[in-house]
């Protein structure tokens, strides 16, 4: 069965090579074809995936080859529930993201699609590798394509500044993670995940490693004081770049927190480090939401809302982790974070796409200059509100269940923390509904509104497919929760001893 995973891993790489080589406007259809093939392959794997196994047998579709005789590292890939969920997210969003760019002007487009597929290759590598060095390598592989996408197609006058900032920030973060992993490796038998879990590190070593590894994830997410690259990059990247970054790439860090940070260094969580992270995350929630409220630039608003939502995921994970190391096994935080990661991926891609549609109609990102589009574009108004409500976390949309579990898990740890974390629900309603209200209702520029068209075919199909996910997962979230259950039990119970 492992050939399935190998195909899943290599298909985007082959696809990107083919698309790179084929300099033709039609290469976009080829890229879409590869992305769809990839999506169906992952559905097929999901259908054959066994959710009911116990903690010991969580890994499926394993591939394991020796890699280097000098570095004790193997080409080891495999999927458990957590990987499966994020693989699905990647492979569902990639075709949608590719499709969403079909109306853009051509201009080296085959390079653009080649880079998206290359990015997909890196992401799948991150979510399936079971070896520390491999994880780091794929983690960096994702960086180059997104940097090139942001740099080549980003906003002309700003791109040197923001792409440098973005690249340097994330690269520095990952270097610290590398050092942390190497240090653990020198104390364990190999880079294999289980060996890293069982490395004998004393408490003070673990504390240093914790912060080194956490730094990489904190930058990528981003957590409060490390977020200054994020608004610029999300704003000035091309829409597809922002979608890739916020929709999929930041989930790498959520995944990394659960898969690497918590099990390798459980000791510092028992001390004060875990609480510091929790506090930083909650500051991020409130800080991001407050700035989003006063924001007039639509993409910047989404960027800060993303900061706020991510903070909630980290706070939930840390709350459960702290409780677990103190002796009560709690996996709810992890569950909530993963469900929310999936939902946030769908919603934020939708939000960025809506912002892009608004930009095309109004020729501005300033939401004060928008207005009244609901009359001219009723189909858009309906689909836009579904996406908005999903992000706000209205019950029966996909955003609700994750936020609910997360706030409950924070509540279990501390009621005060839950009160602050819960502010995200109120604030997100404030800024997102303000955004929607300004853009869709009220007085608008008559000339713009007279010529404004409703959704084109491409736009309609992208938004509809996202909206379907928003509602279906909102009504029926149970499969996702079951999918990640056993792998989270394994991770959290390994922290206890």
């Amino acid at each position, binding site marked *: 069965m492992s050939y399935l995973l190998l195909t899943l891993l290599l298909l985007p790489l082959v696809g990107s090579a083919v698309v790179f080589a084929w300099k033709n406007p039609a290469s976009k259809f080829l890229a879409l074809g590869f992305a769809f093939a990839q999506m169906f392959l992952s559905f097929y794997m999901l259908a054959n995936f066994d959710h009911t196994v116990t903690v010991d047998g969580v890994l499926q579709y394993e591939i394991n080859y020796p*890699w*280097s*005789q*000098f*570095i004790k590292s193997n080409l080891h890939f495999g999927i458990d529930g957590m990987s499966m969920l994020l693989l699905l997210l990647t492979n569902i969003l990639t075709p949608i993201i590719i499709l969403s760019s079909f109306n853009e002007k051509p*201009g*080296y487009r085959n390079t653009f699609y080649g880079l998206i597929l290359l990015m997909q290759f890196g992401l799948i590598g991150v979510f399936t590798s079971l070896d520390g*060095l491999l994880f*780091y*390598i*794929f983690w*960096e*592989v994702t*960086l*180059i394509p997104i940097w*090139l996408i942001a*740099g*080549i197609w980003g906003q002309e006058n700003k*791109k*040197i500044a923001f*792409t*440098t900032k973005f*690249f*340097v920030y994330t*690269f*520095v973060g990952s*270097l*610290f993670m*590398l*050092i942390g992993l*190497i*240090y653990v*490796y*020198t104390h364990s038998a190999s880079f294999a995940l289980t060996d890293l879990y069982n490395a004998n590190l004393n408490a003070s070593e673990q504390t240093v490693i914790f912060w080194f590894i956490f730094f990489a994830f904190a930058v990528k997410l981003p957590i409060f004081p490390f977020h200054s690259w994020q608004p610029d990059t999300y704003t000035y990247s091309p829409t597809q770049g922002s979608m890739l970054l916020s929709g999929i790439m930041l989930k790498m860090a959520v995944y990394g927190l659960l898969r690497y940070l918590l099990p390798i260094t459980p000791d510092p969580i028992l001390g004060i480090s875990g609480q510091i992270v929790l506090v930083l995350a909650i500051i991020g929630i409130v800080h991001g939401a407050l700035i989003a409220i006063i924001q007039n630039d639509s993409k910047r608003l989404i960027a800060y809302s993303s900061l706020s939502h991510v903070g909630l995921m980290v706070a939930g994970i840390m709350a459960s982790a702290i409780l677990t190391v103190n002796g009560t096994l709690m996996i709810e935080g992890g569950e909530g974070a993963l469900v929310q990661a999936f939902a946030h991926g769908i919603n934020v891609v939708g939000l960025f796409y809506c912002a892009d549609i608004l930009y095309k109609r109004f020729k501005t990102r300033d939401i004060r200059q928008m207005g009244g589009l609901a009359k001219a574009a009723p189909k858009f108004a309906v689909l836009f509100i579904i996406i908005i409500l999903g992000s706000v976390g209205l019950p029966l949309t996909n955003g609700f269940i994750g936020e609910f579990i997360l706030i409950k898990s924070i509540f279990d740890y501390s009621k005060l923390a839950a009160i602050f974390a819960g502010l995200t629900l109120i604030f997100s309603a404030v800024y997102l509904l303000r955004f929607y209200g300004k853009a869709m209702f009220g007085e608008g520029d008559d000339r713009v509104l007279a010529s404004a068209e409703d959704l084109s075919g491409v736009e309609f199909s992208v938004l509809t497919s996202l909206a379907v996910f928003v509602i279906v997962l909102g009504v029926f979230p149970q499969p996702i929760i079951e999918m990640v259950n056993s792998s989270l039990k394994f991770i959290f119970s390994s922290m206890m001893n």
Partner: protein
Amino acid sequence: MSVLIIIFLTAIAALFAGVFEKGKFSRYISIIGLLVAFYVSFLPEAEFFNQYKHMFEYTVNAALFTKIAIVITILLFFLGGFSFSNHRSHQSELYALMLFSLCGGVVLFGFQNLVTLFLGVEILSIPLYVLAGSNKTDLRSNEASIKYFLMGAFATGFLLFGIALVYGSAGTFDLYKIHEFSMENSKDFMFAAGAVLMLVALAFKVSMAPFHMWSPDVYQGSPSLITAFMMSVVKISAFFAFFKVMTIGFQGITGEWINILGVLIIITLFLANVMGLAQSNAKRMLAYSSVSHVGYLALIFFGLNNLSAYNLAFYLFAYSLATVGVMMCLIWVEKLKRETSYNAFKGLAQSEPIIAVAAAVGMLSMAGIPLTAGFMGKFSIFAQAIETTPFLVLVAVLGSAISIAYYLRLIMVMFFPKESSFNTSERVPLTYNIVAVFIIIALLALGIFPDLFARQFGL
């Protein structure tokens, strides 16, 4: 030894070929001679050449480094032909001088005696003093030559004085006898002083801060192909000699010099990377980057194990390949634009995608981005040193974090503008594209399958 003789004869042949033809001919002779030498370096050493027992030894490591140096030199000769010097009529002498310098390198790979070490250093350096000034009408090139010569003479002085002190206390020039002496007499002051002086001299040669002051000027002033040669082949040779002297000869008194080296590493990493960030000229930036790589390399002295020499070879090979990749691009830009500021590279990827990609992969490799050989090189050196000196590794990591910014700048200038600023119809010659493809494949292959290198070189 037979490799050395073949390279030497090739150099003579290349020199005399210049009598009949202007350069092209001697370039072919040089490449063919080097290919023969490369083939011979895989064969076991013949009995006849093995009689210089206590002067020269052809060990596994020597063979490994010889192969690397020959491969890099061949690649550089493929690039040769223009921008070499503005004196087109004296091309064959330049090829011959590069080959003589390579001879010095091979002597350094196999020295077993401090006299051979000294000979090797001089044979390596003296042709370079001439080569640096081979652009006779260019003031900068003349300055480079003089500066390099004066600084080289200083370093020679230090080296000789160090050797004299070592000889004075140990009573021998033989590296292995010095090793035994150092193991037994770890408190001998004169011996330790000799070791430190030799350390300083070799730090001059590999351009380690604060003894690097000559190198940015020399690297910038020399013709670009010569600069590439200095950054790659010369660095490989000098660093391996450095490594061999310190780890074999002075192993017993490691405590006396290792801390000095640690301080030098910190200064190098900090100074070179910060200065690299401040440059506006690509060639000068690469010069500082070259200095900074000595800082990462010198971490090899910490936490030594039996794979250290192999890791050193891997890093040097990866770095040299990357250097050839970037310098190739620079040579082409310099030919068309007559300058090497960052702006000169604007939009290169649009007109010459293959060499631009080679340069980009080279710089990503220098920065240590995964899937390139540079990452594997840095990784193995860091993993080796982290056990004994985590602090130095942290400094090195911060250094490479700074370095990424200046590499990115050049890549961005090449790739991000949508229009090319290269309006001429002139295209790069085929040999450049061949070398570029070779470098891209080699850097990625070594990054993805790090064991490939070991198998190729008989480990």
